[in-house]
């Protein structure tokens, strides 16, 4: 089962990527910290700590990073049985989307050499990046929940091979053009107040990317060019591609975030195309009522997909 | 208990319904007045008649030969006169060319005497088999001498005798093994001599304990040549008797798609064919008689009949006391793989092993509905195909696209149609697909 091994490998890499930030945090007294539920911060110490000090709320100062003057009221602090994990309970729910700062004050100097230990608790950035990816891929799938790129979606989802080719081409062009757009936006348009030229510049960059991919592919890999070349023309006149830089500009994403968005959007488009194509190959064999043959039934199936994708609504992974 | 030998994937357990005829000894049917012998009795080129209308022939005379290509001669089953050479109703095709003989009831029956074959060499044995007009009587009718001349690069090491007889109703092979065990074993020795192999397996399904016992006894008593013959008891599961499945059950080897068994060093012969080889080589008697199981609730007197090739169905029906009012369908061959007969004029051929007269309650005539993709056919298919997909493509008029589903690997065992809860005629769909996809 070749596919299975590939799948396993991908999973292994993904798990490792998720574990890395956890492994990388090791500094001073604190081994790890994170939000528990919405009224809790969990702090993990490297070694068991003193119950009398570390289970006393008076030793903790907690505030939202943007509101340093307003202390959050602690309800209680619990240490677990190993003495290594402290649970900080709060009276009011925390806004976990914002970074928080925890200061441990009046510590006995013997423990760390310092009397104050301050650290930041925030949702992991990698998680945030992944959430952009997953969001564009599934939760806010461009086709089924944002309703973009439908012309190409309906036009090229008749056969699975075409769908695959189209999806891959799209993803490549999307990523390249979105990153180029990011550079342009950050370093040329924003500093000079040329925001209003967004549309022209972005579509220009998309055409440029398409042209570049076309030329490079033709030279480097003619076989691949023959397979994908036909789709390249279709790419320019498509709103999915141009939507990515527009969203990027709207949300002021940084480079990595833009990359994740483009990758997710492209992957989501590929996924939608591929699923739709395999379903449509099946639909071709069906006895669909005559008036609904072809595009109308494709719309209705897409609507059913969108209904199913409602299941992802409200999903927050990280 | 040790598991009985079987193949790993697919297969079904249809009701065997062999009790109707399993206990009935082979009965010799009187010769009919007229016989129709098809010129094409085997795979390959049809025979060219060597007689003309009005010619007189004796029992066992050659009446047609193959001059070019694969084939083996046909013989006159009776003494008599050639009445006509023309088209006659055929079980699979609508009609086919045949030689019609008018029986001369006065002529004495020909008597065959035993000859010693031990001194004959391979070529002589093969010639005897070819002259006997032997074909694989259990299946498609592949000329036996051709099957016994494998390509030189194939290293044949095993002979398998197929006595599985997995199709419901049919008991012809069962009776042959019971009544002619010694002949079959001797036939096996002949084949082993021809192929130069030292190992022979006789595969018999576990539901025929008497046949197993008879064969084991015959094997013990026969010491003619070298090599070992073993009787292997097989699990009762359809299609145990299919060549590829049988080879896998017994040897564990897998025959690749479209390759012959010789590719994995195996040759398979039906037990009845082996009996015919014995007849041809030892007695010099060509293949013109056939044990046919006539069964089903639609016939008054089910029987295992020894009939002459060419005997028309209506003669057999008349001999067995006619049909019963419940008769709903007549099937040439077994209920799983057989073909429905359209007329009683159809004659028996060398490959006919049974004719079933099925009553309403033995067949399923409910109309089929749309496929619900339950996947039962996938589980049942011994070849690992997807019959449902093929059928859906055929229904949508896209037979050409069925090739990726392996439509040509299908040997039409009928397992899929048997398990289908929607009663879909999957085998017919696949036949259609093969027909149209080939074009």
């Amino acid at each position, binding site marked *: 089962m070749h596919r299975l091994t590939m799948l396993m490998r991908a999973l292994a890499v993904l798990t490792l990527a998720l574990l890395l930030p956890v492994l990388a945090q090791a500094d001073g007294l604190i081994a790890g910290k994170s939000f528990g539920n919405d009224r809790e911060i969990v702090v993990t110490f490297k070694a068991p700590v003193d119950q009398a000090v570390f289970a006393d709320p008076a030793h903790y100062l907690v505030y939202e990073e943007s*509101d*340093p*003057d*307003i202390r959050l009221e602690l309800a209680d602090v619990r240490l677990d049985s190993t003495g290594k994990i402290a649970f900080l309970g709060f009276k009011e*729910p925390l806004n976990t*989307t914002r970074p928080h700062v925890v200061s441990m004050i009046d510590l006995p100097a013997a423990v760390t050499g310092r009397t104050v230990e301050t650290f930041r608790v925030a949702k992991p950035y990698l998680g945030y990046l992944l959430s952009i990816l997953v969001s564009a891929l599934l939760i806010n799938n461009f086709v089924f929940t944002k309703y973009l790129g439908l012309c190409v979606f309906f036009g090229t989802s008749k056969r699975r091979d075409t769908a695959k080719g189209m999806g891959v081409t799209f993803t490549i062009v999307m990523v390249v053009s979105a990153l180029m757009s990011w550079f342009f936006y950050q370093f040329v348009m924003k500093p000079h107040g040329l925001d*209003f030229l967004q549309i*022209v510049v972005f579509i220009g960059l998309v055409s440029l990317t398409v042209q570049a991919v076309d030329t490079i592919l033709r030279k480097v890999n003619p076989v691949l060019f023959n397979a994908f070349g036909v789709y390249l023309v279709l790419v320019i006149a498509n709103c999915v591609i141009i939507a990515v830089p527009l969203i990027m500009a709207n949300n002021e994403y940084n480079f990595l975030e833009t990359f994740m968005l483009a990758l997710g959007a492209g992957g989501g488009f590929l996924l939608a195309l591929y699923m739709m194509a395999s379903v449509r190959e099946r639909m071709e064999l069906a006895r669909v009522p005559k008036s609904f043959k072809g595009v109308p039934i494709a719309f209705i199936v897409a609507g059913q997909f969108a209904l199913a994708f409602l299941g992802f*609504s409200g999903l927050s992974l990280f | 208990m040790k598991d009985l030998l079987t193949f790993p994937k697919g297969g079904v357990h249809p009701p065997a319904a062999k009790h109707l005829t399993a206990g009935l000894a082979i009965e010799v049917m009187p010769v009919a007045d007229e016989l129709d012998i098809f010129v094409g009795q085997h795979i390959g080129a049809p025979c060219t008649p060597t007689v003309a209308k009005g010619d007189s022939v004796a029992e066992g005379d050659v009446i047609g030969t193959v001059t070019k290509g694969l084939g083996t001669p046909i013989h006159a089953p009776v003494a008599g006169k050639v009445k006509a050479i023309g088209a006659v109703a055929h079980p699979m095709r609508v009609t086919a060319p045949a030689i019609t003989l008018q029986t001369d009831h006065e002529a004495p029956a020909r008597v065959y005497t035993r000859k010693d074959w031990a001194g004959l060499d391979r070529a002589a044995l093969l010639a005897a088999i070819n002259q006997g007009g032997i074909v694989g009587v259990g299946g498609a009718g592949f000329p036996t001498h051709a099957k016994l001349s494998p390509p030189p690069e194939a290293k044949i090491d095993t002979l398998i005798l197929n006595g599985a007889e997995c199709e419901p109703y049919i008991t012809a092979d069962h009776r042959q093994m019971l009544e002619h065990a010694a002949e079959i074993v001797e036939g096996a020795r002949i084949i082993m001599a021809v192929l130069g192999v030292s190992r022979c397996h006789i595969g018999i399904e576990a539901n025929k304990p008497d046949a197993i016992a008879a064969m084991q006894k015959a094997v013990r008593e026969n010491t003619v040549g070298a090599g070992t013959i073993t009787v292997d008891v097989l699990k009762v599961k359809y299609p145990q008797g299919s060549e590829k499945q049988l080879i896998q059950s017994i040897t564990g080897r897998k025959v690749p798609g479209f390759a012959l068994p010789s590719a994995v060093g195996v040759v398979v012969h039906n037990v009845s064919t082996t009996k015919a080889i014995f007849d041809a080589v030892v007695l010099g008697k060509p293949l013109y008689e056939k044990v046919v199981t006539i069964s089903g609730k639609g016939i008054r007197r089910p029987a295992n009949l020894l009939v002459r090739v060419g005997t028309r169905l209506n003669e057999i029906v008349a001999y067995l006391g006619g049909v019963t009012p419940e008769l709903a369908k007549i099937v040439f061959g077994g209920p799983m793989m057989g073909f429905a007969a359209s007329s009683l004029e159809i004659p028996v051929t060398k490959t006919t092993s049974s004719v079933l007269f099925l009553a309403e309650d033995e067949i399923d005539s409910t109309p089929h509905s749309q496929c619900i993709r339950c996947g039962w056919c996938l589980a049942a298919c011994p070849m690992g195909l997807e019959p449902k997909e093929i059928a859906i493509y055929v229904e949508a008029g896209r037979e050409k696209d069925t090739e990726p589903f392996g439509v040509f690997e299908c040997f039409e065992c009928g397992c899929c149609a048997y398990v289908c809860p929607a009663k879909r005629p999957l085998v017919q769909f696949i036949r259609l697909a093969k027909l149209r996809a080939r074009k």
Partner: protein
Amino acid sequence: MKDISTIIFRLTLTCLVAALIMGGSFIVTNRAKQHNQQVNEQKVMLSLLGYSAAKPAPASLALHPVYRYLVTEQDVQTLGYLVPVAGGATDAFALVTIALDGKFVARHDLRLAPEKAEQAKERLQAVQTAVGSGKTIQYADQTIIVTDNGQRQAYLLPGEFPGFKTFVKVILALDPGFTVLGLEIMEHEEDPGLGGEIVQDYFKNQFRGKPYEALKKLGVVKEPLPDEYRGALEAGKTGRLGPEEVARIQEQYKDHDIYALTGATISSRSVTNGVKGIVKKFAYRIAFLDRVLAEQRIVVPF
């Protein structure tokens, strides 16, 4: 070769013409856009204060924005409030920095034209120059203090907090005693029909009239909304109840918890918690600011 030069020439010309058209329309529309945006925001704010086309705001009413910044110098953080200075020029502003514990730190005077003060970028630049280099300035939020003839009438607090799905952006109006005057949902992405109902009068008007004491303990209940209360909450839309009636009913429910939207308890709770958070933080800070302004004798128009 000639071909290419023609192409380049024509393309350049086309681009120039296109840029001309776009630039021209940008110049024309940009001003109108900003103007309209302001007018729109002002309209929402005034409507929260109870003014409408039928009951226009008096000319004596004035809105004074106060911007809050986080000023960081090495590890020390202070809060910087950009306040207008009363008396004298309209472009006089002062950045008052206050330590986290509420003690006055410093005052930086700066000059900034009021229309420029509304531009986030220019304002930040002005503030940065005022505090001098070596300190990082981070914009935090904005409060609008409403005065009538110099008397404090209300506070308008734009804010945002996480909803069920993404952020909910609101403007909240408080009277000087921190009683809620009104709540307006500006932007949200809650589910239509469920959490999306937070924009309905019968939900958001529940906050109206809640005194600060009640607000601090405000919770959410999953009981059905009483019909009478609902009538009062939707009075502005249906017009069936008279103002006295509405006031009476609102008085009756003023200490009651928020009735959750059916099927959208999470959204209801997020809005309630969000509003609570905004008010609490503001009440905490405005006290310090007022004290510092009074101590330092900084004359402000509010």
